[in-house]
Protein backbone atom coordinates (compact mmCIF):
# COMPACT_ATOMS: atom_id res chain seq x y z
CA UNK A 1 0.00 0.00 0.00
CA UNK A 2 2.79 2.35 0.97
CA UNK A 3 4.47 1.56 -2.30
CA UNK A 4 1.51 2.60 -4.40
CA UNK A 5 1.18 5.80 -2.40
CA UNK A 6 4.79 6.54 -3.12
CA UNK A 7 4.31 5.92 -6.82
CA UNK A 8 1.32 8.19 -6.78
CA UNK A 9 3.35 10.95 -5.18
CA UNK A 10 6.16 10.53 -7.71
CA UNK A 11 3.65 10.58 -10.54
CA UNK A 12 2.22 13.80 -9.15
CA UNK A 13 5.65 15.41 -9.15
CA UNK A 14 6.25 14.17 -12.69
CA UNK A 15 2.93 15.63 -13.77
CA UNK A 16 3.91 19.02 -12.45
CA UNK A 17 7.31 18.91 -14.16
CA UNK A 18 5.75 17.85 -17.45
CA UNK A 19 3.20 20.64 -17.17
CA UNK A 20 5.99 23.16 -16.67
CA UNK A 21 7.76 21.85 -19.78
CA UNK A 22 4.43 22.21 -21.56
CA UNK A 23 4.32 25.89 -20.68
CA UNK A 24 7.85 26.30 -22.00
CA UNK A 25 6.74 24.60 -25.22
CA UNK A 26 3.78 26.84 -25.80
CA UNK A 27 5.43 30.05 -24.64
CA UNK A 28 7.27 31.02 -27.87
CA UNK A 29 4.02 30.89 -29.80
CA UNK A 30 2.13 32.82 -27.14
CA UNK A 31 4.87 35.43 -27.20
CA UNK A 32 4.44 35.92 -30.94
CA UNK A 33 0.66 36.07 -30.51
CA UNK A 34 0.92 38.78 -27.85
CA UNK A 35 3.38 40.80 -29.89
CA UNK A 36 1.28 40.57 -33.01
CA UNK A 37 -1.33 42.61 -31.14
CA UNK A 38 1.05 45.41 -30.20
CA UNK A 39 2.08 48.58 -31.99
CA UNK A 40 5.33 48.69 -33.89
CA UNK A 41 7.11 50.78 -31.23
CA UNK A 42 6.41 48.21 -28.52
CA UNK A 43 8.01 45.31 -30.41
CA UNK A 44 11.68 46.06 -29.97
CA UNK A 45 14.06 43.51 -28.49
CA UNK A 46 13.98 45.34 -25.17
CA UNK A 47 10.20 45.49 -24.94
CA UNK A 48 9.37 42.13 -26.46
CA UNK A 49 8.31 40.56 -23.17
CA UNK A 50 5.90 43.37 -22.26
CA UNK A 51 2.26 42.46 -22.37
CA UNK A 52 0.09 44.60 -24.61
CA UNK A 53 -1.30 47.53 -22.62
CA UNK A 54 -4.12 49.93 -23.43
CA UNK A 55 -1.52 52.18 -24.99
CA UNK A 56 0.28 49.62 -27.14
CA UNK A 57 -2.66 47.40 -28.06
CA UNK A 58 -3.62 47.74 -31.71
CA UNK A 59 -6.16 45.00 -32.14
CA UNK A 60 -6.08 43.39 -35.54
CA UNK A 61 -4.36 46.25 -37.35
CA UNK A 62 -1.16 44.24 -37.85
CA UNK A 63 -3.16 41.35 -39.24
CA UNK A 64 -4.97 43.50 -41.75
CA UNK A 65 -1.78 45.23 -42.83
CA UNK A 66 0.11 41.95 -43.02
CA UNK A 67 -2.53 40.23 -45.12
CA UNK A 68 -2.76 43.07 -47.63
CA UNK A 69 0.90 44.05 -47.88
CA UNK A 70 2.29 40.59 -48.29
CA UNK A 71 -0.53 39.14 -50.37
CA UNK A 72 -1.06 36.57 -47.70
CA UNK A 73 -4.21 35.11 -49.19
CA UNK A 74 -2.52 34.54 -52.52
CA UNK A 75 0.41 32.83 -50.80
CA UNK A 76 -1.98 30.74 -48.78
CA UNK A 77 -3.72 29.62 -51.95
CA UNK A 78 -0.45 28.67 -53.65
CA UNK A 79 0.71 26.75 -50.61
CA UNK A 80 -2.60 24.98 -50.32
CA UNK A 81 -2.83 24.15 -54.00
CA UNK A 82 0.75 22.90 -54.21
CA UNK A 83 0.38 20.77 -51.10
CA UNK A 84 -2.91 19.20 -52.09
CA UNK A 85 -2.01 18.53 -55.72
CA UNK A 86 1.44 17.18 -54.86
CA UNK A 87 0.23 14.91 -52.11
CA UNK A 88 -2.64 13.52 -54.18
CA UNK A 89 -0.31 12.86 -57.09
CA UNK A 90 2.26 11.25 -54.80
CA UNK A 91 -0.38 9.01 -53.21
CA UNK A 92 -1.80 7.85 -56.52
CA UNK A 93 1.40 7.28 -58.46
CA UNK A 94 3.48 5.91 -55.61
CA UNK A 95 0.90 3.44 -54.37
CA UNK A 96 0.57 2.07 -57.91
CA UNK A 97 4.31 1.92 -58.31
CA UNK A 98 4.73 0.26 -54.92
CA UNK A 99 2.15 -2.39 -55.79
CA UNK A 100 3.99 -3.20 -58.98
CA UNK A 101 7.27 -3.42 -57.05
CA UNK A 102 5.88 -5.83 -54.47
CA UNK A 103 3.95 -8.08 -56.88
CA UNK A 104 6.28 -8.25 -59.87
CA UNK A 105 9.80 -9.45 -59.35
CA UNK A 106 12.31 -8.24 -61.86
CA UNK A 107 14.96 -5.71 -62.70
CA UNK A 108 12.52 -2.83 -63.01
CA UNK A 109 11.08 -3.49 -59.55
CA UNK A 110 14.31 -3.88 -57.66
CA UNK A 111 15.85 -0.97 -59.58
CA UNK A 112 12.98 1.32 -58.62
CA UNK A 113 13.10 0.19 -55.02
CA UNK A 114 16.80 0.88 -54.56
CA UNK A 115 16.48 4.22 -56.33
CA UNK A 116 13.80 5.21 -53.85
CA UNK A 117 15.91 4.28 -50.86
CA UNK A 118 18.84 6.10 -52.39
CA UNK A 119 16.86 9.26 -53.09
CA UNK A 120 15.90 9.56 -49.43
CA UNK A 121 19.53 9.97 -48.41
CA UNK A 122 20.59 12.50 -51.05
CA UNK A 123 20.58 16.05 -49.67
CA UNK A 124 18.61 18.60 -51.66
CA UNK A 125 21.64 20.85 -52.13
CA UNK A 126 23.11 18.17 -54.36
CA UNK A 127 20.47 18.67 -57.02
CA UNK A 128 19.12 22.15 -56.31
CA UNK A 129 20.81 24.02 -59.13
CA UNK A 130 20.27 21.46 -61.85
CA UNK A 131 16.74 20.72 -60.68
CA UNK A 132 15.79 24.40 -60.95
CA UNK A 133 17.21 24.52 -64.48
CA UNK A 134 15.41 21.31 -65.48
CA UNK A 135 12.16 22.71 -64.12
CA UNK A 136 12.63 25.90 -66.13
CA UNK A 137 13.27 23.99 -69.34
CA UNK A 138 10.26 21.74 -68.88
CA UNK A 139 8.00 24.64 -67.80
CA UNK A 140 7.40 23.10 -64.40
CA UNK A 141 8.23 26.41 -62.75
CA UNK A 142 4.71 27.43 -61.71
CA UNK A 143 2.47 26.35 -58.82
CA UNK A 144 0.27 24.29 -61.11
CA UNK A 145 2.98 21.99 -62.44
CA UNK A 146 5.41 21.91 -59.55
CA UNK A 147 3.64 18.83 -58.19
CA UNK A 148 5.52 16.76 -60.77
CA UNK A 149 8.79 17.77 -59.16
CA UNK A 150 7.41 16.99 -55.75
CA UNK A 151 6.37 13.58 -57.05
CA UNK A 152 9.91 12.96 -58.19
CA UNK A 153 11.40 14.11 -54.93
CA UNK A 154 8.80 12.73 -52.53
CA UNK A 155 8.45 9.37 -54.23
CA UNK A 156 11.19 7.78 -52.14
CA UNK A 157 9.46 8.00 -48.79
CA UNK A 158 6.00 7.16 -50.19
CA UNK A 159 7.08 4.10 -52.18
CA UNK A 160 9.08 2.93 -49.20
CA UNK A 161 6.10 3.19 -46.86
CA UNK A 162 3.67 1.54 -49.28
CA UNK A 163 5.94 -1.39 -50.06
CA UNK A 164 6.58 -1.89 -46.35
CA UNK A 165 2.86 -2.32 -45.82
CA UNK A 166 2.11 -4.29 -48.98
CA UNK A 167 4.66 -6.97 -48.20
CA UNK A 168 2.36 -8.14 -45.42
CA UNK A 169 -0.79 -8.04 -47.59
CA UNK A 170 -2.10 -11.50 -48.54
CA UNK A 171 -1.85 -12.08 -52.27
CA UNK A 172 -4.84 -14.49 -52.22
CA UNK A 173 -7.46 -11.73 -52.21
CA UNK A 174 -5.99 -10.22 -55.33
CA UNK A 175 -5.76 -13.63 -57.00
CA UNK A 176 -9.40 -14.25 -56.24
CA UNK A 177 -10.30 -10.94 -57.86
CA UNK A 178 -8.23 -11.90 -60.87
CA UNK A 179 -10.06 -15.22 -61.23
CA UNK A 180 -13.33 -13.31 -61.02
CA UNK A 181 -12.22 -11.45 -64.13
CA UNK A 182 -10.67 -8.22 -62.87
CA UNK A 183 -7.80 -6.73 -64.79
CA UNK A 184 -4.81 -5.38 -62.79
CA UNK A 185 -6.18 -1.84 -62.77
CA UNK A 186 -9.49 -2.98 -61.36
CA UNK A 187 -7.74 -5.13 -58.79
CA UNK A 188 -5.66 -2.19 -57.71
CA UNK A 189 -8.48 0.31 -57.36
CA UNK A 190 -11.18 -2.01 -56.04
CA UNK A 191 -9.18 -4.38 -53.85
CA UNK A 192 -5.79 -2.96 -52.99
CA UNK A 193 -6.75 0.67 -52.45
CA UNK A 194 -9.34 0.07 -49.73
CA UNK A 195 -6.90 -2.13 -47.79
CA UNK A 196 -4.27 0.54 -48.20
CA UNK A 197 -6.31 3.34 -46.64
CA UNK A 198 -4.52 3.60 -43.25
CA UNK A 199 -1.11 3.70 -44.92
CA UNK A 200 -2.45 6.27 -47.37
CA UNK A 201 -3.43 8.54 -44.50
CA UNK A 202 -0.06 8.14 -42.80
CA UNK A 203 1.84 8.84 -45.99
CA UNK A 204 -0.39 11.79 -46.83
CA UNK A 205 0.34 13.35 -43.45
CA UNK A 206 4.08 12.93 -43.66
CA UNK A 207 4.21 14.28 -47.20
CA UNK A 208 1.91 17.21 -46.39
CA UNK A 209 4.07 18.21 -43.43
CA UNK A 210 7.02 18.28 -45.79
CA UNK A 211 5.49 20.05 -48.80
CA UNK A 212 3.56 22.66 -46.80
CA UNK A 213 6.66 23.76 -44.89
CA UNK A 214 9.18 23.38 -47.69
CA UNK A 215 11.09 26.55 -48.35
CA UNK A 216 14.09 25.93 -50.57
CA UNK A 217 12.55 23.90 -53.38
CA UNK A 218 9.76 26.36 -54.26
CA UNK A 219 12.15 29.29 -53.81
CA UNK A 220 14.51 27.92 -56.40
CA UNK A 221 11.92 26.52 -58.78
CA UNK A 222 9.18 29.15 -58.74
CA UNK A 223 9.56 32.73 -59.91
CA UNK A 224 9.64 34.60 -56.59
CA UNK A 225 8.23 37.79 -58.08
CA UNK A 226 5.12 36.05 -59.34
CA UNK A 227 4.43 33.15 -57.01
CA UNK A 228 5.18 32.96 -53.31
CA UNK A 229 4.24 30.13 -51.01
CA UNK A 230 3.85 30.98 -47.33
CA UNK A 231 7.40 30.14 -46.21
CA UNK A 232 8.73 32.11 -49.20
CA UNK A 233 6.50 35.05 -48.38
CA UNK A 234 7.69 35.16 -44.78
CA UNK A 235 11.32 35.07 -45.82
CA UNK A 236 10.71 37.63 -48.59
CA UNK A 237 8.83 39.90 -46.24
CA UNK A 238 11.81 40.05 -43.95
CA UNK A 239 14.41 40.45 -46.62
CA UNK A 240 12.79 42.94 -48.98
CA UNK A 241 12.25 45.97 -46.76
CA UNK A 242 15.10 48.00 -45.36
CA UNK A 243 13.64 47.75 -41.90
CA UNK A 244 11.56 44.77 -40.95
CA UNK A 245 8.07 45.68 -39.86
CA UNK A 246 7.82 43.46 -36.85
CA UNK A 247 4.10 43.79 -36.12
CA UNK A 248 2.77 42.59 -39.49
CA UNK A 249 5.54 40.00 -39.56
CA UNK A 250 4.34 38.53 -36.26
CA UNK A 251 0.77 38.64 -37.49
CA UNK A 252 1.72 36.69 -40.61
CA UNK A 253 3.62 34.14 -38.53
CA UNK A 254 0.50 33.65 -36.42
CA UNK A 255 -1.65 33.28 -39.53
CA UNK A 256 0.76 30.62 -40.77
CA UNK A 257 0.93 28.74 -37.50
CA UNK A 258 -2.72 28.83 -36.48
CA UNK A 259 -4.32 26.79 -39.29
CA UNK A 260 -1.67 24.11 -38.87
CA UNK A 261 -2.17 23.95 -35.11
CA UNK A 262 -5.94 23.79 -35.46
CA UNK A 263 -5.71 21.06 -38.08
CA UNK A 264 -3.33 19.21 -35.80
CA UNK A 265 -5.65 19.40 -32.81
CA UNK A 266 -8.54 18.13 -34.90
CA UNK A 267 -6.78 15.11 -36.37
CA UNK A 268 -3.86 14.57 -34.04
CA UNK A 269 -4.57 10.87 -33.67
CA UNK A 270 -3.94 10.28 -37.37
CA UNK A 271 -0.90 12.50 -37.38
CA UNK A 272 0.77 10.73 -34.47
CA UNK A 273 -0.12 7.33 -35.89
CA UNK A 274 1.27 8.46 -39.22
CA UNK A 275 4.58 9.40 -37.65
CA UNK A 276 4.82 6.08 -35.85
CA UNK A 277 3.97 4.15 -39.01
CA UNK A 278 6.53 6.14 -40.98
CA UNK A 279 9.20 5.40 -38.41
CA UNK A 280 8.50 1.70 -38.27
CA UNK A 281 8.68 1.36 -42.03
CA UNK A 282 11.57 3.78 -42.35
Amino acid at each position, binding site marked *: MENSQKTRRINGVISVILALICVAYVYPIVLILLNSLKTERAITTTRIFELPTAETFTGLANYIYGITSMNFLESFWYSLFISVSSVLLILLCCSMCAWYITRVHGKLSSGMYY*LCVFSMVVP*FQMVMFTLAKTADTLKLNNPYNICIIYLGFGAGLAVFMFTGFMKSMPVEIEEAAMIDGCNPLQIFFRVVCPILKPTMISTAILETMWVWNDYLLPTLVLDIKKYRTIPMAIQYFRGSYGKVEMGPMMACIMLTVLPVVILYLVCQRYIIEGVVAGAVKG
Partner: protein
Amino acid sequence: MEKAIKKYWPVFVLPTLLAFIIGFIWPFIWGIGLSFCQFTTVKNVTFVGIQNYIKIWADDTFIHAFWFSTAFTIVATVLINVLGFLLALLLTRHVRGTNIFRTVYFMPNLIGGVVLGYIWNTLLNGLLTLLEKPLLQLNATYGFWGLVILMCWQQIGYMMIIYIAGLQNVPPDLIEAARIDGATARQVLLRVKIPMVMPSITICTFLTLTNSFKLFDQNLSLTGGEPAKLTQGLAYNIYDTFYARSGAQWKGIGQAKAVVFFLAVVVIALVQLRLTRSKEVQQ
Protein backbone atom coordinates in the same frame (compact mmCIF):
# COMPACT_ATOMS: atom_id res chain seq x y z
CA MET B 1 -0.98 -12.85 -61.95
CA GLU B 2 2.56 -11.50 -62.08
CA LYS B 3 2.49 -11.66 -65.86
CA ALA B 4 -0.79 -9.80 -66.10
CA ILE B 5 0.46 -6.98 -63.89
CA LYS B 6 3.73 -6.84 -65.75
CA LYS B 7 1.91 -5.95 -68.96
CA TYR B 8 0.51 -2.89 -67.21
CA TRP B 9 3.88 -1.46 -66.25
CA PRO B 10 3.42 1.76 -68.23
CA VAL B 11 0.39 2.54 -66.11
CA PHE B 12 1.80 1.53 -62.75
CA VAL B 13 5.45 2.47 -62.88
CA LEU B 14 5.97 4.91 -65.71
CA PRO B 15 4.48 8.09 -64.15
CA THR B 16 6.59 7.73 -61.02
CA LEU B 17 9.64 6.75 -63.02
CA LEU B 18 9.31 9.77 -65.31
CA ALA B 19 8.87 12.16 -62.40
CA PHE B 20 11.79 10.48 -60.73
CA ILE B 21 13.97 11.03 -63.77
CA ILE B 22 12.92 14.69 -64.05
CA GLY B 23 13.01 15.48 -60.36
CA PHE B 24 15.88 13.38 -59.17
CA ILE B 25 17.96 11.16 -61.44
CA TRP B 26 18.73 13.62 -64.21
CA PRO B 27 19.53 16.58 -61.89
CA PHE B 28 21.68 14.25 -59.80
CA ILE B 29 23.77 12.97 -62.69
CA TRP B 30 23.97 16.41 -64.24
CA GLY B 31 25.03 17.79 -60.86
CA ILE B 32 27.89 15.35 -60.62
CA GLY B 33 28.93 16.30 -64.14
CA LEU B 34 28.81 20.03 -63.39
CA SER B 35 30.98 19.60 -60.32
CA PHE B 36 33.88 19.06 -62.74
CA CYS B 37 33.11 22.23 -64.67
CA GLN B 38 33.23 25.97 -64.33
CA PHE B 39 29.91 27.62 -65.13
CA THR B 40 27.72 30.59 -64.38
CA THR B 41 24.66 29.51 -66.33
CA VAL B 42 23.98 26.17 -67.93
CA LYS B 43 25.06 27.50 -71.33
CA ASN B 44 28.68 28.52 -70.70
CA VAL B 45 30.17 25.41 -69.19
CA THR B 46 33.87 24.62 -69.42
CA PHE B 47 35.42 21.44 -68.17
CA VAL B 48 38.05 22.03 -65.49
CA GLY B 49 38.66 18.54 -64.15
CA ILE B 50 39.02 18.18 -60.41
CA GLN B 51 39.99 21.81 -59.88
CA ASN B 52 36.75 22.61 -58.08
CA TYR B 53 37.42 19.84 -55.62
CA ILE B 54 40.86 21.22 -54.89
CA LYS B 55 39.57 24.77 -54.46
CA ILE B 56 37.02 23.65 -51.88
CA TRP B 57 39.74 23.02 -49.35
CA ALA B 58 41.16 26.49 -49.82
CA ASP B 59 37.79 27.96 -48.85
CA ASP B 60 37.91 28.54 -45.10
CA THR B 61 34.16 29.07 -44.82
CA PHE B 62 33.55 25.52 -46.05
CA ILE B 63 35.99 23.96 -43.57
CA HIS B 64 34.42 26.00 -40.80
CA ALA B 65 30.92 25.03 -41.92
CA PHE B 66 31.99 21.40 -41.95
CA TRP B 67 33.11 21.53 -38.32
CA PHE B 68 30.12 23.64 -37.38
CA SER B 69 27.74 21.05 -38.84
CA THR B 70 29.65 18.19 -37.25
CA ALA B 71 29.63 19.76 -33.78
CA PHE B 72 26.00 20.76 -34.15
CA THR B 73 25.00 17.27 -35.31
CA ILE B 74 26.71 15.56 -32.39
CA VAL B 75 25.28 17.90 -29.75
CA ALA B 76 21.79 17.98 -31.25
CA THR B 77 21.59 14.21 -31.81
CA VAL B 78 22.65 13.37 -28.26
CA LEU B 79 20.40 15.97 -26.65
CA ILE B 80 17.33 15.25 -28.73
CA ASN B 81 17.54 11.49 -28.25
CA VAL B 82 18.30 11.55 -24.55
CA LEU B 83 15.60 14.10 -23.77
CA GLY B 84 13.11 12.49 -26.15
CA PHE B 85 13.68 9.11 -24.53
CA LEU B 86 13.35 10.58 -21.03
CA LEU B 87 10.05 12.23 -21.94
CA ALA B 88 8.86 8.96 -23.46
CA LEU B 89 9.72 7.12 -20.22
CA LEU B 90 7.81 9.68 -18.17
CA LEU B 91 4.84 9.59 -20.51
CA THR B 92 4.51 5.78 -20.34
CA ARG B 93 4.04 5.86 -16.55
CA HIS B 94 0.32 6.62 -16.83
CA VAL B 95 0.63 10.01 -15.16
CA ARG B 96 -2.30 12.38 -15.33
CA GLY B 97 -2.50 14.52 -18.45
CA THR B 98 -0.34 12.25 -20.61
CA ASN B 99 -2.41 12.91 -23.71
CA ILE B 100 -2.23 16.69 -23.39
CA PHE B 101 1.51 16.59 -22.80
CA ARG B 102 2.09 14.36 -25.79
CA THR B 103 -0.02 16.62 -27.99
CA VAL B 104 1.83 19.76 -26.94
CA TYR B 105 5.33 18.31 -27.19
CA PHE B 106 4.72 17.12 -30.72
CA MET B 107 3.23 20.38 -31.98
CA PRO B 108 6.41 22.28 -33.00
CA ASN B 109 7.06 19.65 -35.66
CA LEU B 110 4.22 20.90 -37.74
CA ILE B 111 5.59 24.40 -37.96
CA GLY B 112 8.00 24.98 -40.80
CA GLY B 113 11.69 25.65 -40.31
CA VAL B 114 11.64 29.21 -41.64
CA VAL B 115 8.79 30.27 -39.38
CA LEU B 116 10.33 28.51 -36.37
CA GLY B 117 13.58 30.33 -36.98
CA TYR B 118 11.87 33.70 -36.78
CA ILE B 119 9.90 32.80 -33.69
CA TRP B 120 13.06 31.79 -31.87
CA ASN B 121 15.04 34.67 -33.25
CA THR B 122 12.54 37.03 -31.65
CA LEU B 123 12.45 35.17 -28.36
CA LEU B 124 16.19 34.57 -27.96
CA ASN B 125 17.17 38.08 -28.97
CA GLY B 126 14.71 39.43 -26.44
CA LEU B 127 16.22 37.20 -23.77
CA LEU B 128 19.78 38.12 -24.69
CA THR B 129 18.94 41.82 -24.54
CA LEU B 130 17.39 41.29 -21.15
CA LEU B 131 20.62 39.68 -19.96
CA GLU B 132 22.63 42.43 -21.65
CA LYS B 133 24.44 40.00 -23.92
CA PRO B 134 25.16 40.43 -27.66
CA LEU B 135 22.41 39.42 -30.08
CA LEU B 136 22.32 36.07 -31.85
CA GLN B 137 23.54 37.58 -35.10
CA LEU B 138 26.60 39.04 -33.40
CA ASN B 139 27.96 36.11 -31.47
CA ALA B 140 28.67 32.73 -33.04
CA THR B 141 28.52 30.82 -29.74
CA TYR B 142 25.03 32.07 -28.97
CA GLY B 143 24.09 31.38 -32.57
CA PHE B 144 25.24 27.79 -32.22
CA TRP B 145 23.36 27.17 -28.97
CA GLY B 146 20.35 29.03 -30.30
CA LEU B 147 20.23 26.55 -33.16
CA VAL B 148 20.60 23.65 -30.74
CA ILE B 149 17.72 24.91 -28.60
CA LEU B 150 15.54 25.48 -31.64
CA MET B 151 16.30 22.04 -33.05
CA CYS B 152 15.59 20.39 -29.69
CA TRP B 153 12.32 22.24 -29.36
CA GLN B 154 11.26 21.06 -32.79
CA GLN B 155 12.51 17.49 -32.84
CA ILE B 156 12.20 16.14 -29.31
CA GLY B 157 8.46 15.65 -29.71
CA TYR B 158 8.83 13.64 -32.89
CA MET B 159 11.43 11.32 -31.41
CA MET B 160 9.40 11.04 -28.22
CA ILE B 161 6.44 9.72 -30.20
CA ILE B 162 8.61 7.04 -31.79
CA TYR B 163 10.13 6.08 -28.43
CA ILE B 164 6.71 5.87 -26.82
CA ALA B 165 5.58 3.47 -29.54
CA GLY B 166 8.74 1.44 -28.97
CA LEU B 167 8.29 1.33 -25.19
CA GLN B 168 4.67 0.31 -25.51
CA ASN B 169 5.72 -2.62 -27.64
CA VAL B 170 7.94 -4.07 -24.91
CA PRO B 171 6.03 -7.13 -23.67
CA PRO B 172 4.89 -6.45 -20.06
CA ASP B 173 5.61 -10.06 -19.00
CA LEU B 174 9.26 -9.51 -19.84
CA ILE B 175 9.45 -6.60 -17.39
CA GLU B 176 7.40 -8.59 -14.88
CA ALA B 177 9.77 -11.53 -15.14
CA ALA B 178 12.78 -9.26 -14.62
CA ARG B 179 11.14 -7.75 -11.52
CA ILE B 180 10.42 -11.17 -10.06
CA ASP B 181 14.05 -12.06 -10.59
CA GLY B 182 14.85 -9.09 -8.37
CA ALA B 183 15.86 -6.47 -10.93
CA THR B 184 15.81 -2.86 -9.74
CA ALA B 185 14.08 -0.16 -11.78
CA ARG B 186 17.43 0.88 -13.17
CA GLN B 187 18.30 -2.66 -14.21
CA VAL B 188 14.92 -3.06 -15.88
CA LEU B 189 15.59 0.10 -17.85
CA LEU B 190 19.14 -0.74 -18.88
CA ARG B 191 18.83 -4.51 -19.40
CA VAL B 192 15.28 -4.90 -20.65
CA LYS B 193 13.73 -1.70 -21.93
CA ILE B 194 16.67 -0.16 -23.79
CA PRO B 195 17.67 -3.38 -25.60
CA MET B 196 14.04 -3.91 -26.56
CA VAL B 197 13.63 -0.43 -28.03
CA MET B 198 16.89 -0.61 -29.98
CA PRO B 199 15.01 -0.48 -33.33
CA SER B 200 13.44 2.83 -32.27
CA ILE B 201 16.84 4.11 -31.22
CA THR B 202 18.22 3.17 -34.63
CA ILE B 203 15.49 5.09 -36.42
CA CYS B 204 15.62 8.11 -34.15
CA THR B 205 19.38 8.52 -34.27
CA PHE B 206 19.24 8.08 -38.03
CA LEU B 207 16.59 10.76 -38.38
CA THR B 208 18.24 13.23 -36.00
CA LEU B 209 21.69 12.70 -37.48
CA THR B 210 20.61 13.31 -41.05
CA ASN B 211 18.20 16.13 -40.14
CA SER B 212 20.84 18.00 -38.15
CA PHE B 213 23.51 17.48 -40.73
CA LYS B 214 21.23 18.65 -43.54
CA LEU B 215 19.87 21.57 -41.50
CA PHE B 216 19.02 24.51 -43.72
CA ASP B 217 15.76 26.42 -43.12
CA GLN B 218 16.35 26.98 -39.43
CA ASN B 219 19.92 28.04 -40.09
CA LEU B 220 18.81 30.54 -42.70
CA SER B 221 16.12 32.16 -40.61
CA LEU B 222 17.58 31.99 -37.09
CA THR B 223 21.07 33.37 -37.65
CA GLY B 224 21.39 33.81 -41.41
CA GLY B 225 24.95 32.55 -41.03
CA GLU B 226 25.92 35.72 -39.15
CA PRO B 227 28.32 36.87 -37.82
CA ALA B 228 30.64 36.68 -40.83
CA LYS B 229 29.43 33.21 -41.92
CA LEU B 230 30.52 31.75 -38.60
CA THR B 231 27.19 30.04 -37.97
CA GLN B 232 26.80 28.51 -41.41
CA GLY B 233 26.13 24.81 -41.53
CA LEU B 234 27.18 22.84 -44.59
CA ALA B 235 23.88 23.01 -46.41
CA TYR B 236 23.66 26.75 -45.92
CA ASN B 237 27.27 27.23 -46.95
CA ILE B 238 26.57 25.44 -50.23
CA TYR B 239 23.51 27.59 -50.86
CA ASP B 240 25.54 30.69 -50.06
CA THR B 241 28.32 29.64 -52.45
CA PHE B 242 25.80 29.14 -55.23
CA TYR B 243 23.59 32.15 -54.92
CA ALA B 244 25.24 34.84 -52.82
CA ARG B 245 28.76 35.08 -54.19
CA SER B 246 29.82 36.80 -57.36
CA GLY B 247 32.64 35.37 -59.40
CA ALA B 248 32.73 32.84 -62.21
CA GLN B 249 34.26 30.02 -60.23
CA TRP B 250 31.78 29.84 -57.33
CA LYS B 251 28.95 27.85 -58.90
CA GLY B 252 31.30 25.05 -59.90
CA ILE B 253 32.84 25.03 -56.45
CA GLY B 254 29.38 25.04 -54.90
CA GLN B 255 28.41 22.00 -56.93
CA ALA B 256 31.62 20.23 -55.91
CA LYS B 257 30.88 21.08 -52.27
CA ALA B 258 27.43 19.56 -52.73
CA VAL B 259 28.96 16.31 -53.98
CA VAL B 260 31.29 16.18 -50.97
CA PHE B 261 28.32 16.94 -48.73
CA PHE B 262 26.31 14.15 -50.32
CA LEU B 263 29.14 11.66 -49.82
CA ALA B 264 29.46 12.72 -46.18
CA VAL B 265 25.74 12.14 -45.60
CA VAL B 266 25.93 8.68 -47.20
CA VAL B 267 28.93 7.72 -45.06
CA ILE B 268 27.27 8.93 -41.87
CA ALA B 269 24.04 7.10 -42.69
CA LEU B 270 25.81 3.82 -43.49
CA VAL B 271 28.08 3.89 -40.43
CA GLN B 272 25.22 4.77 -38.12
CA LEU B 273 22.94 2.04 -39.48
CA ARG B 274 25.65 -0.57 -39.14
CA LEU B 275 26.54 0.47 -35.59
CA THR B 276 23.03 0.52 -34.15
CA ARG B 277 21.61 -2.38 -36.16
CA SER B 278 24.28 -4.65 -34.68
CA LYS B 279 22.95 -3.86 -31.21
CA GLU B 280 19.36 -4.79 -31.99
CA VAL B 281 17.96 -7.96 -30.47
CA GLN B 282 15.64 -10.36 -32.24
CA GLN B 283 12.22 -10.56 -30.69
